[in-house]
């Protein structure tokens, strides 16, 4: 090594030139990220779109934000790897095109609890209501914290149009009519879920509660792939 790095050589010179040193360092750290990221944005075939994948409904957007606020992603992944055991346990492995409306992505990095990428439709609405209120009522020995406040806190439906329009600016294809009517659309989806929960013997009066939005989101997870057309 001593043959090409001399103690009084060229490197010694740039050690006296902080600006040059800083510029060279900056160039070094920009290469890797650029080479890896640009193709992900520019080459469409990297993320093949799936026809049946559509944006979240207004209530599901709200439910997703509740999922984020509770920190569910700390313990639950949403990304099924293409392994035999994972497909057996959780369902079809996750595709790039399924996540195109996920802002932020919620794939997670730890499975303290099971993966939720395809939990949509796996359990009835009431199961989720009971599970959030007291996880051990549906899953004996579960370590999950209880979330009883989700049945008490109310959803601010009037906030939803603002959220949709922020998402639209970023590229999610909501129409202006959808954004204007978002609060109403969310209310009617919530009423439907609340009716279903009450009809099956669950608590009533959940139509404006956070749990209903969260259930809407959870029931949507991973279901786009199996919609008609695939």
């Amino acid at each position, binding site marked *: *090594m001593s043959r090409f790095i001399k103690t009084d050589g060229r490197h010694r010179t740039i050690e006296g030139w902080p600006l040059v040193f800083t510029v060279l*360092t900056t160039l070094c750290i*920009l290469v890797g990220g650029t080479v*890896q990221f640009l193709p992900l944005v520019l080459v469409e075939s990297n993320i093949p779109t799936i026809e049946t994948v559509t944006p979240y409904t207004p209530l599901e957007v709200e439910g997703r934000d509740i999922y984020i606020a*509770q920190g569910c992603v700390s313990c639950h992944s949403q990304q099924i790897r293409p392994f035999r055991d994972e497909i057996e*346990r959780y369902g079809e492995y996750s595709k790039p095109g399924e996540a195109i409306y996920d802002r932020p992505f919620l794939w997670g*990095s*730890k499975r303290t609890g099971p993966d939720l990428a395809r939990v949509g439709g796996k359990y009835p609405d009431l199961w989720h209501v009971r599970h959030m209120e007291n996880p051990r009522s549906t899953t004996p020995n579960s370590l999950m*914290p209880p979330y009883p406040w989700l049945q008490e806190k109310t959803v601010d439906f009037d906030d939803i149009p603002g*959220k949709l329009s922020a998402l639209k600016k970023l590229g999610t294809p909501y129409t202006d009519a959808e954004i204007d009517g978002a609060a109403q659309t969310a209310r009617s989806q919530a009423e439907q879920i609340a009716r279903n929960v009450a009809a099956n013997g669950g608590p009533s009066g959940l139509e404006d509660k956070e749990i209903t939005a969260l259930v809407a989101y959870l029931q949507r997870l991973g279901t786009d792939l199996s919609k008609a057309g695939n």
Partner: protein
Amino acid sequence: MESTQTPTQPGSANPSRLTVTFDDQITRYFVIATAIWGFVGMLVGAIIALQLPFWQANLGEYLSFGRLRPLHTNAVIFAFAGNAIFAAIYYSTQRLLKTRMWSDGMSRFHFWGWQAIIVSAALTLPLGITTSKEYAELEWPIDVAIAVVWVVFAINFFLTLRQRREKHMYVAIWFYIATIVTIAVLHIGNSLAMPAGLFKSYPLFAGVQDAFIQWWYGHNAVAFFLTTPFLGLMYYFLPKAAERPVFSYRLSIVHFWSLVFIYIWAGPHHLNYTAVPEWAVTLGMTFSVMLWMPSWGGMINGLFTLRGAWHKLRDSVVLKMFVIGITFYGMSTFEGPMLSVKTVNALSHYTDWTVGHAHAGALGWNGFMTFGMIYWLLPRLYRTELWSGKLANTHFWVGTIGMLLYVIALYSAGVTQGLMWRAFDDAGRLIYPDFMETVIQIIPMYWVRLVGGTMYLVGMVLLLVNMYMTIKTAKEKPVDASIQVAS
């Protein structure tokens, strides 16, 4: 700073000499903040470690696991390790460049701004105000504040570089430059978002692209917040404590440039087997394996600096801590590339093995390098003896045994659960189709981990006591160090 660099008084030793007084008060601030936030961050860590095997410890909405986990990671990374690297940078940069910091005001703005950001994190995260992106959970107004404080820090640092009285920059300074530049790039890149209200935003990129950007950031937060500044710290404080020059100048050149170039590529190994395209994760894996060598270059340069000085470990708790720190650095930078290899990752990912790996680096490398630095700095910053060498030695042992328990418990938990998830019987059915079965199996390991983590926390308390008593017993108001330079 004309007030701080006054010519010596007539009659003193040499009229052609100038006295430069260093700003050591800013280092004292950062050292004290490091110890206090370290305790807070690790206490929250112990609480969430208890919540895993004992769900009753989830005390309501604001203190449940999902809210406290990001508080723990942010506190230990940005408050504990963050304040520690700033203490190291302000102390060593002034001495290596033979000049006071360019602006005392900017140094203080950096200190108080950073503490304000930490407090705002401690308030918003329990309230559920979060982006959910790991180690970047803070919402956009705080992200803007971070960018402002960081830019002020950078300006102050680079203008100090410009007014240096030492022509060549020592290797520690190289690592500080890489830290300052890269953290700015990563933070801004990963925080690009559209606000939807004061406490909510949606990221510019979605899905696969967002995942990539997040782990480009996430992995390089490890690289440029928890590795490069700590290597700079090592290059300054280890030779000082050992009173030996650094082992190899050439090795420092080779490992510096290869480390800063290669690290950035490694992010996608966090996304093995996900929907991120195969070519990208394979690149990430390949560069992660390559990263092993530059990392060990740092370890070798550190450990070999102690050649002929190993006997000093008997009496120096500082050196003992540095040796454990550098050894854990070596172990985690071997383990990291190993875990990035797809076949290993298939087993380890999503399990506690990853958590164990992260803590080997955080507790071993970041924690022990910080502790060693603080024990070395305290007598010098306060012109007194360390209050109790014995207590520091107890800290060393309780911390070392604690983190060994911690990582061994989680390795065991991770491998056990990973193997159970993929176990098939002869008929081709999952042996443990019920997820709960695989959880119950590892609960004893969660308790062991809690014991180990609590021991480490006790060590942190011992440091706080030692620091408090050292400062209290210091005879007078602390005096800042000064040197004579040619005017």
